[in-house]
């Protein structure tokens, strides 16, 4: 895959996260950090999506990326980690799929609507499980990272 393509994707992921951060009023000091986290997570998603082509793995790994990077950033800028998560998630989240499935229900295409709903749940669960994995990982690493940052 072209390196330019990946860079463009990361830049747009960054812009998307920063924009959502502004809408949801995140504190200004976390805006840059969550933008970068969101961009990199989107980059991970795009690459893994190209390589594996299935639905769960890209979302899972992107969520793990967000979980780890957001925790590190939260320690660095001293902010609650949930405040970091929200803007980073915006480009990964199955918002478009749930909307399309609800639109299909309105139009009476029941079979596609149910498919969409299940797809929505799959993606959302993949993201949520990714976060759980990242939290478990970070619980082990946190004291170590804090020590490392104090020295730096």
């Amino acid at each position: 895959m072209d390196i330019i393509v990946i860079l463009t994707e990361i830049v747009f992921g960054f812009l998307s996260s920063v924009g959502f951060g502004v809408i949801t009023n995140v504190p200004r000091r976390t805006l840059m950090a969550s933008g970068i986290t969101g961009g990199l997570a989107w980059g991970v998603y795009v690459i893994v999506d190209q390589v594996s082509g299935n639905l769960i793995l890209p979302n899972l790994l992107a969520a793990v990326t967000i979980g780890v990077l957001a925790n590190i950033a939260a320690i660095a800028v001293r902010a609650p980690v949930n405040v970091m998560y929200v803007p980073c998630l915006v480009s990964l989240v199955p918002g478009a799929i749930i909307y399309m499935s609800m639109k299909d229900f309105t139009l009476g295409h029941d079979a596609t609507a149910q498919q969409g709903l299940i797809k929505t749940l799959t993606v959302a669960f993949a993201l949520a499980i990714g976060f759980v994995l990242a939290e478990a990982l970070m619980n082990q690493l946190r004291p170590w990272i804090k020590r490392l940052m104090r020295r730096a």
Partner: protein
Amino acid sequence: MTAVFVDAQTEAHTHLIKVRTGDFNLQKVDEINSVSRAFVGGEIDFDQLQQRIEAIDRKVIDFTWPQKIFGAGLVSVAPMLLFKATWADLAWAFFVGIAGYLASQWVGRQTTTPYITSAVGGFTIALLAAALVQWGWATSSDNIIISALMPLVPGVALTNSLRELIGKHTISGMVRAVDAVLVAGAIGGGVVLGAVLVRILAGV
């Protein structure tokens, strides 16, 4: 819909505070978090804590409107559609998304009826996107709609509700999941109405 339970360890009473759900304001969450950390750490006493919290409650912590509008525009260019939609459509989505965000914010100020804000946002976006395609300025109304809906769609809420379910906060997780589905339904209904309206108007 949502409530905060305040419980004292030494007493049997539980205080229940109903939350008026409206906008996100993560900046207030952050400030309350740092104040309570200072309190727990013993840096400020209870009176100071109360003062600071009241000050945070009264203070309007917000980005300015131009900043928010620009932010909504940025969110409306969905990375998901890069290299799938045409660049012109994505550029249109930037402006259509702003219009939808402004419409839903404006309606939210006029009424307290739940879900109508999302429906109006979806309606505006579908109307503009379908009209742009009808005039021949854009190629795919579906791509513009999906992209421009990003600021309104309850994807983050749904994912957070599943995180709550996994964290065993079952009740609040369920409440938010149902809310997210209803919001998506309202948006879907609004979009269908807008698209149908343009089709009728163009057919005449």
